[in-house]
Every structure is written in C-alpha cells, then in structure tokens.
C-alpha cells in the first residue's frame, strides 16, 4: 500500500451504422488499492459481439477481483460463452490490466492489440511470457508501476483505423505510440487521453469507423485530496466547527457560495476580495481569500460544474471549454476532474431565504440535489468521495 492510485478512462466508437458496441470495458475495484480492468472485444459486431464482450469482461473482472487464477477465468469463459451459429466458435478477445496493491501491474492479453506502456514519455517494452490455457495462447506480464506510468489497452479497431480510407495499412502500433507520446507529459487525465486517441481514430476512419474501436487508458498517479465547502451550516453556531474541520483537511480547499465565503474569510480572519471579471457571462466572478485555493459563487457555479461532469462521463465534448477557461465553474471542474482523487464535500444545510423565491431557479432542494448528483458523477469518474452535512 502506498499513495499511488489509478486514473482510468475508457470510451468506444461504434462501428458505423451499429447501435451497440461490440467491445466492452469493465472495471472492478478490489479492496483499497487494487483494480481489475478488462477490455473485451466480441467476435463480429452488433448485438452478438456486445453480448460476448459483456459476458467476457464481466466474468473475468468478477473472478479476478475474487482472487481466482487466470486459468480458471479463461476456462470458465470457454465453457460459458454462447457459440456463434455462423462461425461455430465462442470467441471474444480480451486484455486484463490488474493493478495489485498500487505497486504492480499484471497484464494479461489474449489476441487484442498489445497494451502500450508509456513511462517518462517513452514506450516501454515489458517482458511477456506466453502460456497455453485451454488451447488459447495467453500472454502474461508483470511490471512494477511508478507515478506517471500510462497503460493503453485497445481493441483492434484502433490500429485498423484508416485502412483503405486514409492509410493503406491502418495505424500501426508505433504510430499510435508516437501520437500518444506527445501528450503524456501534459498531465491530461486518462479520460482525456482516451478521447484524444479515439478522435484521431475516428478522423482516420473518415468519421465512419469500420470496426468497433475502444480505448482504455490507465494512468498511475499520486493520491490528491481536495476539499470543497458549500453552504452555511443549518445551525449558525456550527460555523466555527464546520470551518475548522474543513481547513484541517489535507489538500486544496475550495469555498463555494457568497455567505459561505464570508464565513470562511471571518474564520481565517482574512479579507475576502471579489473580482469583477466575467470570464463566462453566466457564471458569477470568483473571489480570493488568503489560505483558500479557490473561492466561487455557489449554486449557479456548481450547477455548471455538474453539467460538465455529466458530459465528461459521456463524450467529454465540453472539455474544450472547461479545460482552459477562467470562470469559477471551469476552475472547479479542472480541480475536481483532473487534479483530485479523493474529495471531501462539506455541505451546509442552511436555507437561504432569498433562494426560496419561486422565480429563482436555485431553491434549497435544488442545491442538495446538485451536490448529490455531482458526488455521484465524481464517483463514476473513479474518485473517492465523502460527503458530510452540517
């Protein structure tokens, strides 16, 4: 056990004209610091492939997380998968990345493009051993992980991108490595790296992918705690208690809400300086308090952060906005989505009488729901979330 953790991001392009993706990624947490990530690519495309890959990834991830051997997993799959009536085989290729205790990555691969490993901006050729399990040639590797390592698992739709459209032979593994190398120093999240690679594949396919294409990026990073307080406590006498708990936490501190920032400023005995620049016309300006990393307005800003979070989990279109803008919502989005791994929410339950005006879209229940939904989205991003109410 150490302070390394995994940032995992995956997404797929469906074969042109298909509603379902024949690839499937499954992530299962195994205790505190271990993870099983499985990318399966089912034979064919459409619903049949989707069933094969879903079953394969579900079975493997569940069994691996329960500490069963790869031999058991593979034989179970061979016995369980429905046989394709056209081809008379039950078949789904797979890649397993098993992060053990935050110290080691076990990579098990069967017929998918070889997992790319980047360390310090260079591709690493990790040693592999091929074993025969139930007649299938399975390659196994073990590598010690360190901060900044990036593993990229692919379905064959990725190296095949552009075959016959823009490139004669598709996009070779080396080309993908070269493409990804240029980004790995920037500090993009796994999800962003995944999105960039998929977009490039889509471009090479001319917007009409010839095969299901899936990318799953696993980035090894340090744990980064973050704390966000929103709303004054329901009992005004608890202000001091809430603030001292909040500021005693390790990591960065974000204060959201007008009244809340006044309370924080008072607690820290520092002036609150509000700015007047509207970087986004709909988001109120941010402020500064010495000792606080970010001070923003409350409900409107968080509402926008939630929109970004929901989009991040889908296709990450709004990344183009929040990745560089300086309004409160974009700043919070960058801190929570990109920097943080463990987030503590301190939610004050005081009812702001001004917000109970039926003409304003910001009443109390909306505020509570916003925080719940945001916490949910962040959990889906793989972050550890704790919410405390005051």
């Amino acid at each position, binding site marked *: 056990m150490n302070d390394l953790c995994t940032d995992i991001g995956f997404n797929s392009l469906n074969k042109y004209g298909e509603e379902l993706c024949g690839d499937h990624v499954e992530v299962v947490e195994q205790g505190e610091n271990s993870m099983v990530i499985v990318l399966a690519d089912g034979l064919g495309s459409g619903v049949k492939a989707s069933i094969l890959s879903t079953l394969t990834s579900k079975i493997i991830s569940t069994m691996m997380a329960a500490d069963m051997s790869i031999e058991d997993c593979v034989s179970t799959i061979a016995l369980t998968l429905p046989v394709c009536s056209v081809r008379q085989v039950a078949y789904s290729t797979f890649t397993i990345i098993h992060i053990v205790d935050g110290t080691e990555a076990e990579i098990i691969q069967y017929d998918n493009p070889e997992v790319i490993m980047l360390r310090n901006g260079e591709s690493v050729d990790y040693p592999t051993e091929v074993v025969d399990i139930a007649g299938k040639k399975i390659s196994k590797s073990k590598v010690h992980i360190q901060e900044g390592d990036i593993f990229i698992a692919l379905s064959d739709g990725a190296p095949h991108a552009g075959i016959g459209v823009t490139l004669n032979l598709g996009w070779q593994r080396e080309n993908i490595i070269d493409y990804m190398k240029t980004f790995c120093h920037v500090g993009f999240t796994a999800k962003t790296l995944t999105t960039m690679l998929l977009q490039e594949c889509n471009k090479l396919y001319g917007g009409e992918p010839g095969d299901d294409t899936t990318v799953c990026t696993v980035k090894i990073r340090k744990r980064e705690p973050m704390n966000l307080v929103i709303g004054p406590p329901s009992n005004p006498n608890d202000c001091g208690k809430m603030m001292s708990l909040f500021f005693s936490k390790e990591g960065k501190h974000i204060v959201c*809400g*007008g*009244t809340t*920032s*006044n309370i924080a400023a008072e607690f820290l005995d520092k002036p*609150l300086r*509000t*700015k*007047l620049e*509207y970087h986004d*016309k709909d988001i*109120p*300006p941010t*402020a500064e308090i010495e000792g606080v990393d970010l001070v923003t*307005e*409350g*409900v*409107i800003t968080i509402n926008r952060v939630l929109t970004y979070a929901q989009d991040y989990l889908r296709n990450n279109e709004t990344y183009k906005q929040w990745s560089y803008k300086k309004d409160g919502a974009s700043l919070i989005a960058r801190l929570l989505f990109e920097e943080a791994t463990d987030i503590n929410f301190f939610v004050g339950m005081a009812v*702001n*009488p*001004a*917000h109970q*005006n039926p003409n*304003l*879209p*910001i009443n109390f229940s909306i505020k509570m729901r916003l925080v719940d939904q945001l916490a949910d989205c962040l959990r889906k991003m793989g972050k550890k979330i704790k919410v405390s109410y005051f």
Partner: protein
Amino acid sequence: MKLTVCIGSACHLKGSRQIVEQLQKLIAENGLEEKVELIGTFCLGTCQTGVSVKLDETLYSLNPEDIKSFFEKEVLAKL
C-alpha cells in the same frame, strides 16, 4: 467614492453582470476611473430585494434598467 455590486447567486440571477458592465461603461465614458472605485462583493444580506449596490455605505436595490438614472442622480451628483 466606492461602488460595490453584489455578485452573489440571487443578485447574479437578477442581473449583476449587466449592472457591472453598464457601470464600467459609464465610469469610463465619464472618465471617472480615478474617482469611482467599482468593486464586487458576495452577499450583502439583502438578497430578496434585487441587485444590491452599495454607494459608499448606502445600500440600494437596483435593476439593470435603473442604472443610468442611478448613476446620474446618485453618483454624478455626489461627486
């Protein structure tokens, strides 16, 4: 002279930004950058009544439409 505009949630929804922009324009047009300091603040505690604007220590509740007359009557007159 200090002009403080609330940019908290409620006031934001009632038009703080338009008010800030109009005031910035009016101050520039009248060449008052040296004399009038425009600052933002979070909640001034009178959220119910509209956008809270403080002229030195006097509190006003304003709509974006009122700004021009407010500026002429209150700000310019008191300079």
